[in-house]
């Protein structure tokens, strides 16, 4: 047993992080918020870096890596708030021409929602009759398809899509903890950094605990690909991202409440991702059944 990142995995993660830091920094994020739309040049660069073809066999022109590597890469895109139907395009590599190289932007119907419908070149699933929503997340255009019944039956979600979404949530959980800590160390009130107050300190500690617990669950699910592990990863990563972003906002106080601050974008994206993959109810029910199966 060696449940730690290998050297290669570390290098992959660092490579993706550096690419994103260079090509999608705070200024690029602000630009994207003002006019969202996948940056086609960046998309091709991600394709060239192997993000989409990551799990495609080398014989098919792919990178030939596995789920663990994909999870590490999408943790980084989640962290960076990178916009676009990244997971759908990744899943389309090898099936939809151009998806692997980033030439084609591919989206997919997920339950009653489609992200990036207008901007995508290819849509997987039946998006007929889709109507646009005014998306809560400025970085994720949304369309609604199907009946207006939250409980309605939807196609069983692809577990790989669920897991990669959990990886993105993990990225958010980690990032918001860093943002909160950074703010808490520098913001002074009552003559000391607010991070010296136990109430703030303990909010931050709980954020880290949730993120690290989710990390173990997400990485393990990537290794085993076991459906129950994927469901567990999903539940813990959703919780770590949504509650983490909420707590990050609380730590930032008024300063996090402005449109310019990065915090709210994490919360909104975490809300969007939490709607993917069939909702938490199914995940909880399947994990209950797993106990008696």
């Amino acid at each position, binding site marked *: 047993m060696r449940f730690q990142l290998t050297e290669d995995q570390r290098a992959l993660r660092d490579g993706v992080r550096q690419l994103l830091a260079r090509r999608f920094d705070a200024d690029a994020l602000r630009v994207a918020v003002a006019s969202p739309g996948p940056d086609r040049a960046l998309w091709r660069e991600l394709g060239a870096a192997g993000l989409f073809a990551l799990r495609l066999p080398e014989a098919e022109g792919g990178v030939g890596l596995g789920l663990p590597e994909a999870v590490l890469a999408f943790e980084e895109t989640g962290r960076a708030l990178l916009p676009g139907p990244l997971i759908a395009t990744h899943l389309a590599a090898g099936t939809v021409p151009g998806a692997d190289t980033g030439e084609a932007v591919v989206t997919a119907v997920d*339950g*009653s*929602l489609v992200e990036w419908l207008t901007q995508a070149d290819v849509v997987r699933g039946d998006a007929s009759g889709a109507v646009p*929503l*005014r*998306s*809560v*997340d*400025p970085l994720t255009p*949304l369309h*609604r398809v199907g009946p*207006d*019944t*939250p*409980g*309605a039956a939807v196609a069983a979600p692809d577990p790989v899509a669920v897991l990669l979404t959990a990886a993105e949530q993990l990225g958010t959980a980690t990032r918001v903890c860093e943002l909160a800590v950074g703010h808490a160390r520098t913001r*002074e*009130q*009552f*003559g000391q950094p*607010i991070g010296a*107050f136990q*109430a*703030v300190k303990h909010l931050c500690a709980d954020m880290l605990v949730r993120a690290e617990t989710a990390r173990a669950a997400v990485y393990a699910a990537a290794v085993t690909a076991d459906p129950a592990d994927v469901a567990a990863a999903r539940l813990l990563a959703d919780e770590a991202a949504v509650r983490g972003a*909420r707590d990050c*906002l*609380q730590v930032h*106080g*008024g*300063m*996090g*409440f*402005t*449109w*310019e*601050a990065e*915090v*709210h974008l994490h*919360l909104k994206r975490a*809300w*969007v991702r939490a*709607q993917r993959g069939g*909702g938490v*109810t199914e995940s909880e029910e399947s994990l209950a059944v797993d106990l008696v199966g």
Partner: protein
Amino acid sequence: MDLSYTPEEEDFRARLREWLAKALPTLPARPSPDDWPARRAYDAGWQRMLYDAGYAGLHWPVDAGGRGATPTQHLIFLEETEKAGAPYVGANFVGLLHAGPTIAAEGTPQQRARWLPPVLRGDEVWCQGFSEPDAGSDLASLRTRAWRDGDAYVVSGSKIWTSHAEVADWCELLVRTDPSAPKHRGITWLAMPMDAPGITVRPLRTLAGSAEFAEVFLDEVRVPVANRVGAENDGWRVTMVTLSFERGTAFVGEVVACRRVLGELARQARRNGRWDDPVLRRRLGRLNAEFRALWRLTQWNVSEAEAGGGVPGVGGSVFKLRYSHARQELYDTAAEVLGADSLDLDRTWVLDRLSSLSYTIAAGTSQIQRNIVAERILGLPKGR
């Protein structure tokens, strides 16, 4: 313990309802949220209607031009106007609920005569210049400076989270007049005319996407010394004194509104099938318990104010802690009812959910409120 209203109170309620039924249909259409002058005009019109009907400054002392109503009457007023869908206080919030009461309590006769009547009539709008970028929870650390130059203070600095700054006539401003004094001791309260040279107002967009607030930048703005309320360097006390006006009614309208939203949520859940999920149903049931209790707690606090002449701000801290959490839970539950539609800003409750994120932060974070409860009610020691 009596939850029934006296004949006088019932009579007050009946006459108010009657008036609202007649008055509300005469209101013009609500203005667009982005049109500040139109919003000001609309709010002023409503205030003038209240004034003409004898409801303006209901809770203000009679000698300040108010009606001297009891806390219970004020509760009835807020309950009925909310239930009738009357306009909110809007642009007149600071004038009616903070600056006005401060001037009523601490102003000179001249100051009261100059500033109070226009507030009651809806003629003049006030905004609040308290918070600064570096003075949030720790308000008393504010750094906007003012120094004497003849018969004026010259003010430089910046304020943040100022509502209605674009259309306000006056700003109740806290400035530092003695930088060498302990931080609570060197603060002065000024009424700043918003048309004075040197004032720049910049809209502040929030995470909800709207510009409900503004930043106010002050570059050597001259404010007459005559506009100072209270003594120089006594502004902290002057400001705090208004809190003693709090008579348990601060959240009456909001609690009534939350109970209405909760009922709408339950009915929406029945329509879209989410009602069949017992987890959601029981969550709605628990929220019903929560807001029933918060309504009773409101009645308790108002009755206590009526009996004792005022609820200390600390009782308000207990209420605010519970209420702000409950309201966030309400809108999180709304998102559960909406499912995928909770991502649609055009759906009812979605923008409200975004706004609800501020409840545990604005007007004293939950962390600060817990300190207040622990130290001032429970008597726990301050940390070193």
